[in-house]
């Protein structure tokens, strides 16, 4: 699984991306985020405020964190977008 981080979430984690093999019990976006927070202080800090964490699965916005990860090969985590 390719994981990408952007903006201040990237800065807090300290990495732009990672390749991770997820444990089979991680089946949903929420489970993935919960597990991420256990990976260290930097992850916990980056993801501390649920309401400003946005997720894209295979480059598509995911608005429902109960969504399954079936078929997902790329997860991106980022704060609310501020383009334009």
């Amino acid at each position: 699984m390719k994981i990408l981080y952007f903006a201040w979430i990237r800065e807090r984690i300290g990495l732009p991306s990672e390749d991770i093999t997820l444990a089979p019990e991680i089946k949903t976006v929420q489970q993935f985020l919960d597990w991420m927070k256990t990976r260290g202080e930097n992850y916990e800090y980056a993801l501390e405020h649920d309401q400003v964490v946005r997720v894209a699965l295979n480059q598509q916005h995911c608005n429902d964190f109960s969504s399954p990860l079936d078929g997902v090969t790329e997860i991106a985590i980022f704060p609310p977008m501020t383009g334009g």
Partner: protein
Amino acid sequence: MTATPIIRVQEQDFDIAKELDLITKDQTNIGAVVSFTGLCRDEGGLLEALELEHYAGMADAQLNDIATQACQRWPLEHLLVIHRYGKISPGKNIVLVIATSSHRQAAFDGASFVMDFLKTDAPFWKKEHFKDGTSGQWVEAKDKDDQARDRWS
């Protein structure tokens, strides 16, 4: 027939005049052309530059999705969206949307719709760099941008 939008995500600057020319040249049945240009503001003279981070791939895909929706919703003849990334100085271009139609309101609405969705749904993030050498916060998303988007639904 719905128009096929043209999307460009690029680091280099764009030339509005050239883009307008390309779209309207040799066309004799357009009627209405609306362009929106978003520029970097200097925040009262304090800003050195904005740094625009983007999610390559998804940025193009999202802009294309948004623009395609606009083309389905209004009778547009052309729809061009250019969004820059990287460091951008005050007064410089960030984003360009050009919509053309036989109908002026369609051209206005198409361009405005793209801008509203782009602000909230396109994966770009802005960080402020100040002239005193400090790097400011990442620009925060605004509630009113969500509201601007939601008025279209």
